[in-house]
């Protein structure tokens, strides 16, 4: 019998019953409610709507806030310990910089705080500033940087000291579409060298960046799996077909009367026919024949694959209805 290895040091990030409760004078807010994360090597996304507990989870992992209950470990080291902090690079949701420092001074300051000597960090800083397109502005005060430049500087800063795990909190929230695209490509490229834990509520980006995801809502884990498995699983649940011909109005009139169809309609946005079958096998066999008989041209016929966004909304809606 193969025993599952659940020990914390075999995972990049491991949490057990991780809980965060904020206490105010009036009430007690459960931000994170006993979540168990098992992050292996690769890019792991933490998904959830605003207020789901993503930032609180990340803040506990980096040691910025205390853990109310449970535990969190980075490669077996207690989250917030010096050993764990040596392994991580962190990019905050809304990076803040010192008003009196230039880009180069800021990154040098963080390098020194990470314990690097001048000869160790100087070359690396030049390399990072060049790579992220801020070399030309290295002697400019950071307060005069654009949003994109600040984000790139923050990423360069997170990478100084060669971390083994990069933790990114909503990294694209301040970027324009072009900046987001570049950022996603960079994350994919960095993932070859290090593990990345990224939180976001922008599902299309997560889909492009991550291998595995954990969805949280109201501080609880709703789902955790690889994106591929999640899609496969939800596609099996979803038996919606898409049909497109050169005469969809004619085809829908014929198909509407068939017994193997449960529901059929034309989608306004795409003008495609959407079909929910009663008998999937019969639908697959009959469509080519019907199209042939009607003498219309078949353009598309396939089982619809849900996007991560649709799956996410579906899961959250079902959960909230329940």
């Amino acid at each position, binding site marked *: 019998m193969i025993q599952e290895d659940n020990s914390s040091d075999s995972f990049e990030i491991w949490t057990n019953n991780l809980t965060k409760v904020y206490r105010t004078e009036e009430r007690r807010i459960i931000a994170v409610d006993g979540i168990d994360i098992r992050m292996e090597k690769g890019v792991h996304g933490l998904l959830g709507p605003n207020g789901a507990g993503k930032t609180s989870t990340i803040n506990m992992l980096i040691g910025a806030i205390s853990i109310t209950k449970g535990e969190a470990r980075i490669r077996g080291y207690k989250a917030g310990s010096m050993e764990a902090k040596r392994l991580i690079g962190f990019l905050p949701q809304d990076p803040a910089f010192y008003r009196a420092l230039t880009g180069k001074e800021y990154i040098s300051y963080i390098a020194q705080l*990470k314990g690097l000597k001048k000869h160790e960090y100087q070359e690396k800083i030049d390399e990072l500033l060049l790579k992220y397109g801020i070399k030309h502005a290295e002697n400019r005060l950071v307060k005069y940087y654009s949003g994109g430049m600040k984000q790139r500087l923050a990423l360069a800063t997170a990478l100084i000291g060669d971390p083994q795990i990069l933790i990114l909190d909503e990294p694209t929230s301040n970027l324009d579409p072009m900046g987001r695209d570049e950022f996603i490509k960079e994350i994919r490229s960095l993932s070859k060298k290090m593990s990345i834990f990224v939180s976001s509520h922008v599902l299309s980006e997560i889909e492009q960046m991550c291998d595995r995801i954990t969805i949280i809502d109201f501080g609880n884990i709703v789902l955790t799996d690889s994106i591929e498995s999640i899609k496969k699983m939800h596609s099996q649940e979803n038996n919606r077909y898409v049909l497109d011909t050169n005469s969809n109005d004619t085809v829908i009139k014929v198909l509407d009367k068939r017994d193997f169809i449960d529901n059929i309609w034309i989608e306004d946005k795409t003008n495609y026919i959407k079909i929910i079958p009663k008998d999937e096998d019969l639908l697959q066999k009959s469509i080519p024949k019907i199209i042939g008989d009607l003498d219309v041209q078949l353009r598309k016929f396939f089982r619809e694959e849900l996007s991560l966004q649709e799956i996410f909304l579906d899961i959250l809606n079902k959960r909230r209805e329940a």
Partner: protein
Amino acid sequence: MSAHKFLREEENKTAKSSKISKDDKSFKNSSLFTSSIAIFKKTLFKDITLRKRFLLSLLFMLIGPFLLFLFIDQSRLNKSNSILETPEILYAVFFFSFSLVFPLLISVFSAPLISSEIYEGTMQTLVSIPIRRTQIFISKFLAVFVYGVFLSFISLSIICIISYLIRPFQDIFIFFFINFLYSLIILFFFESISIGISCLYDKPRIAFLIPLGIILFVFIAFMVIKPLLLSDYYGPSKYETYQIYHFDLNYHFINSFFFLIEIFYSFSDYSNTFLNMFGVVKNGVPTNYWHPLASFVLIISIAFIFMIIGLLRFIKRDINR
């Protein structure tokens, strides 16, 4: 494998692992030193000296004494060759430099040290880096302390030079030394209070308003009513009757100053000293409501308590934006 060979291999392994642990320890120590120096330098040379507040602080501490000396009527000064027994000059030093401007400046620089980093979000990055929060706290504290020492040294040097030009006082170096030590007490007290409060509140403004309130109350508001309380013109002194000196920080500060004077200097006559108006001396005799050393210990203890509360709070607190 022979037992001898096995033992030698084990010894080699132990030696190697002890070397690694020694290297790791020396890396940690050097890293601790590098990061502490980085915070210290950044606080001193970027947060303090690069701001307009720095120039203003120099201006107040340097020009203030000049202006005060301009208003001192030299013909009315007593004939003493001792600056410590020439109260007019000490009033100028105390009331302007070390009772009002200096504590205010120290609070202005200390109050935002922790709170503004939390408020603006830069602290979140700092706490994700392998440095201890105690290190952040102490490095910042030391940076302001060094700045305060510099400010006090420069200001006192100018005061002493001008005083010497007015009259070549024989105890000018003792005066400088005692005042310098006293300025360290003031510096330690107000910096500890301000940085302590800075760890309790997120908003830098609140962290500054509390020490400001203490300074205004202790050195201005209370000083206005203190002569009335001390006076026994209308019956027994209220100050003594209600034992107000226990709670009078102003009294404890001057009594601490008196503690330093007693170590390095002895007055020929107490009646002609500035100590009379603070309740430390009455009718030419020290009141000894509190032993000067006890006042000194009280001031230092209050400062330590604030510093420790602030440090503990900073270590335990959540760093949220």
